């Protein structure tokens, strides 16, 4: 196998493993499918560039989320934050084997939880999202927030407390 093919294979593996998570991460931030696609595509283009140019990536997952965050910061700098389009979210459930009732239930859950999440501050929302939705380990969430793992646990705990309060209100 040629070195270029190895690179393509390596990229494909990371891409397949992370595309959904990165897309979701971006989508819940920008709230628009087109923008989310653009940013996600840019994130992976940056990854491919690193691989193509033989620049070592110690932690692909960390690299992807860090790049996504940076691009999101750029996005927010250029545009006002737009709220998540909740109607689109139900459409995003792509498993076509699910029946309409289940889809509606999921969509309803998503709508409720996303409404509540939108009321959290950025730090709580990011911590809770990464830990519970994306299933990132504490260390990764901590890196992403720039906090220690202990601080991150506290932030997640407080975020969940706030979220619960909002949902019960």
């Amino acid at each position: 196998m040629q070195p270029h093919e190895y690179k393509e294979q390596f990229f494909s593996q990371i891409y397949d493993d992370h595309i959904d998570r990165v897309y979701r991460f971006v989508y819940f931030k920008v709230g628009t499918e087109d923008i989310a696609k653009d940013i996600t595509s840019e994130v992976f283009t940056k990854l491919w560039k690193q691989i193509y140019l033989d620049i070592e990536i110690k932690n692909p997952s960390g690299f992807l989320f860090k790049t996504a965050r940076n691009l999101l910061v750029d996005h927010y700098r250029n545009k006002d934050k737009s709220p998540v389009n909740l109607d689109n979210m139900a459409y995003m459930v792509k498993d076509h084997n699910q029946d309409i009732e289940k889809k509606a239930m999921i969509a309803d859950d998503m709508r409720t939880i996303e409404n509540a999440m939108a009321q959290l501050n950025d730090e709580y929302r990011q911590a809770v999202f990464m830990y519970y939705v994306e299933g990132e380990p504490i260390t990764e969430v901590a890196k992403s927030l720039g906090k220690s793992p202990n601080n991150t646990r506290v932030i997640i705990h407080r975020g969940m407390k706030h979220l619960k309060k909002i949902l019960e209100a």
Partner: protein
Amino acid sequence: MEEFTLIKKLESLKASKPDANWADLTKSRILSQNFEKQTFSFFDYLKQPKLVPAFASFLVVFAVTPFIFAQNSLPGEKLYTFKKIGETVKYAFQSDKSVAQLEQVQVKLGELDRITEQSENQGYKLAAGIKETKQALNKATKDLAKVPESQKAELVGQIVNQITAIEKKTNAAIMDTDKEYQALYKFFVENEIKEIELRQESLSEEQLEIFNKVKELFLEEKYSEALEMIYEIQPNN
């Protein structure tokens, strides 16, 4: 709400995915992109505005210093190239190029004189100095006709005298057989003949005989020999 329920609700968000076709197309599109490695370039640093004044100052100091130190250098020395560059630039700004070329010959003869005065063995410098002088003479002789008459006699006289003095000091021939320089001698000898003719009556018989020989040599275009004989007349004036 139970924490378990809340976590379940949060996990439901995981169900959202991008369109599979889009994901595949995007992957193919990304993989089709090629990138070029950026090589390190010193000039990239210079693009930083902060470094421009510092680099410009460095460049000025770096460029000017050798020219300052080269002012007293002699042919055959390392810094002499810088001196020559400086002379070329200076020459470019001269209004009367033909006079400037004659003055340049004087400068070269001055350098040659300094070399002969140095006590140490400077054979290679002498050779380099003679070469430089000959080059300057070549250029000056070609444009001799353009030199204003008011300055020509004086400048040529000074040069010929300088050459004669150096040739005596070094036993090296600067003007010998090269016909290109003969225009300089021709002009000088012709001028001397005219001057001596004006006071011909004051010449002794012996001087008159030499003078007639000088004129013969001049007509035969043997200017160097004529010059040597002129010097034989003059001390007895």
